[in-house]
């Protein structure tokens, strides 16, 4: 069974990966028309996986599995996602089903 330390480590890894990918969205949108079709496909596939991980973070936040610092990082991540939503829509990316409120 996963220890709390392991759970915390996994949450940290997910928070940083998702935040980085959201930060990267403006560059992706700029590059998109010039990207190789293989690179576009890879991005779409990996985004779908990150959406799953965002939804699991949402679940962790609602069930109080996050530390206070992680909660703060998660709220920052939700702000970033809200700001990036126009790009998500324009690129036709999957949207996470998140119920946690800011």
């Amino acid at each position, binding site marked *: 069974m996963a220890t709390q330390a392991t759970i915390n*480590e996994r949450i940290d*890894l997910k928070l940083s990966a998702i935040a980085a*990918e959201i930060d990267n969205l403006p560059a992706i949108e700029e590059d998109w028309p010039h990207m*190789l079709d293989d690179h576009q*496909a890879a991005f779409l596939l990996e985004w779908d996986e990150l959406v799953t991980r965002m939804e699991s973070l949402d679940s962790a936040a609602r069930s109080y599995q996050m530390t206070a610092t992680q909660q703060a990082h998660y709220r920052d991540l939700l702000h970033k996602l809200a700001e990036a939503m126009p790009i998500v829509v324009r690129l036709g990316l*999957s949207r996470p089903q998140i119920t946690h409120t800011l």
Partner: protein
Amino acid sequence: MAPADETSANVNRIILEAVRGKQLLAADELWEIQEHVANAWYNLSREQRIPGELVGTPWRGRVLQPNDMLPTDVVHYLKHVVVRQEWPLGMTFGGYRESLRGVICDPASGLMTSIYRDKGCHLSIVRRSGELQGPGGYEWLLVEYRVSTGNIATAFQLEDGLGYLDRPGRREKRWLRRPR
């Protein structure tokens, strides 16, 4: 021995016929597909700009900087193995490559065809991660092959397991062989 492009065309024909549901594949045809995909790799025709999460990561004696360009296979390795730690800590680039070949060729791996968004026919190869699961990894691992280009698109570990394959965006899904 058939030339490589002839073999490739034959394998793609077998996959496409399977997608259309025209035939059940025999064991030797499945093996032919696996062997072919095991020799495929990422599209290396053009380097790509590194994503932000790789900035600051050491690679071959230097620390990566914003807007650095790297081959696609290195970007995938650094992202999923080194930074996200989906594979065991310390896994080398060569070990990563061998790990994907091992998954592709494993008789326990599942093979599923589908049409993915506007990207054409894909072959998804899934297997339990087992010894390949790192601190940030998960129980199942995916290698995604693109029939239209003959390249590996990506490989990563799946938080939601096989449920990942049910996400919107895939249609005409067909298991050529379910994972064991």
